[in-house]
């Protein structure tokens, strides 16, 4: 069937424009392989620095496992962020605030739900799970409401990207102020002073059952999102709209409905991330804000608009952040994420799974 292939235009560039050595070196330095090598080198450097400071292998292994957990939490936020970017084409700076809102709404639900006994070996009872299930759609609805009030108007005016980004920043501050107003600046725990025993796993890994729960749930939700995007009508419509919104309309897709579902999904995922983050540490009005940078780093590292990439990026960011605490103050966590993000932008701005340039 070679006759169906278009012949190259007359005078098409051939051997005359073979890449120079310099161009080839530059292309190699910007390839996916180069970025993978650099990321692996950073990870190796971290582990080596930890070993050099006499951090035990067991502790290092435990930190790595916790890193995977943190990566799962970051992934829940990052996937929502990357979906919203894919469909709406703007960086949603209020995503961190939705993470916080989810954690606090679950906290509020738990206050009114009758508390049951802890579901051993976990520290939480069934009311925690119920609160999680209630908080997710509620934050989705909040995200949708923000779209109806703010972003949809901007869309109808064909507003510029900067206006969208600034509006989302404003919404981030608005939501955070709201949380301060309702719950105040204090820290909260889902369960005050409840025993949360450490499990001793093979290889002397020390992990809490709650942490394993977070890992499993995060990955289950990410798996569900993958199925939704590849198998369902709405998922395919989302990918189509992200790829080419004008053509999506021509093919019969109501893109406004797709946008609505994208917000609901993004909000629900952010809420799940917030609740799990709250379970693993504590609730603070700034918690989502501190996750925003790792989430953006994960999104950029994976390739903006690519959910699979966001997951991989989140795991890398989570592990590097946790392992770095072996010898750095944990407060530097976001700085580590930021360093990885800058590195990605310098080497390969389109990220690990970005299309341009192969």
């Amino acid at each position, binding site marked *: 069937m070679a006759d169906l292939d278009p012949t190259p235009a007359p005078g098409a560039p051939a051997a005359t424009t073979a890449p120079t050595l310099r161009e080839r070196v530059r292309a190699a330095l910007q390839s996916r392989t180069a970025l993978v090598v650099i990321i692996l080198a950073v990870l190796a450097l971290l582990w080596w620095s930890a070993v050099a400071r006499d951090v035990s292998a067991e502790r290092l292994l435990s930190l790595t496992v916790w890193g995977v957990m943190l990566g799962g939490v970051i992934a829940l936020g990052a996937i929502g962020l990357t979906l919203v970017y894919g469909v709406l084409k703007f960086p949603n700076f209020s995503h961190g605030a939705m993470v916080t809102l989810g954690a606090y709404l679950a906290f509020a639900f738990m206050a009114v739900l009758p508390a049951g006994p802890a579901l051993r070996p976990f520290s939480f009872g069934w009311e925690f799970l119920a609160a999680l299930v209630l908080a997710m759609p509620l934050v989705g609805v909040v995200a949708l409401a923000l779209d109806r009030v703010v972003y949809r108007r901007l869309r109808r005016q064909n507003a510029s990207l900067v206006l969208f980004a600034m509006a989302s920043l404003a919404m981030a501050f608005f939501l955070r102020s709201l949380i301060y107003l309702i719950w105040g600046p204090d820290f909260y725990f889902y369960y005050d002073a409840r025993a949360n025993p450490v499990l001793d796993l093979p290889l002397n890994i020390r992990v809490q059952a709650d942490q394993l729960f977070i890992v499993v749930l995060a990955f289950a939700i990410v798996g569900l999102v993958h199925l939704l995007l590849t198998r369902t009508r709405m998922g395919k419509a989302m990918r189509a709209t992200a790829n*080419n919104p004008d*053509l999506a309309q*021509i093919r019969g897709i*109501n893109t406004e409905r797709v946008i609505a579902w994208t917000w609901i999904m993004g909000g629900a995922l952010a809420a799940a991330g917030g609740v799990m983050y709250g379970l693993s540490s504590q609730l603070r009005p700034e918690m989502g804000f501190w996750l925003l940078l790792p989430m953006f780093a994960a999104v950029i590292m994976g390739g903006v608009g690519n959910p699979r990439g966001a997951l991989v990026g989140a795991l890398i960011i989570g592990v590097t952040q946790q392992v770095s605490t072996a010898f750095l103050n944990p407060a530097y966590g976001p700085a580590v994420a930021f360093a990885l993000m800058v590195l990605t932008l310098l080497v390969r701005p389109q990220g690990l799974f970005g*299309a341009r340039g192969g």
Partner: protein
Amino acid sequence: MPLLKVDGVTSGYGDMEVLRDVSLAVEPGEIVSIIGPNGAGKSTVMKVVFGQLRPWQGRVELDGRDISRLPPYEIVTLGMCYVPQVANIFTDLTVEENLELGAFALAGREVAARKARIYELFPRLKERARQEAGKMSGGERQMLAMGSALMLDPRLLLLDEPSAGLAPKMVDVIFERIIRVNRTGVAILMVEQNARESLKMAHRGYVMANGQNRVEGPGPELADDPDVARLYLGG
């Protein structure tokens, strides 16, 4: 009653008027070709017909129903489908997913049968079913774009420059498929740079210039018209 009627449409982008008082019609089962120099407003006509651009004046009717205020995703359910000139496939999705999205307005059941029919028309697409659409050649993309638009079994197919950027051999293949689709009863409204070829296969043609339609007539006659030839066919 014509299938499609564009009646005195004036429209444009922002403040810039591109079309002035354009009127045309497509009868059921016809191939109608719009030709004219670059910037004559040919593609803009398509956009107005398919609801991507609102007419400032005049109206667009499908089966006698005014569709000029409808969004594209509703128009597509009324029996008219559209293949834009560029960005006419979902490059990140597979060939198969592209076809399935072509039938998005259709509830599940019939999709498989429709897909089989498109594969029969374009066997090449079947070979590539699982491939990412963006990795295909220009000719294959054009086949996929047409195939996706045919998934809803439209009565009228709008084609914007179906031969643009294709090798001469591929152009022949695409034109031959257009005729084959038309023989199954689908009316075609197409815009073409390849004016002489497209007029030869068209039942009727319109010649546009400066946002207005100037000449109208049976396709082959227009192709042989010395005035049209002198003005728009380059000799």
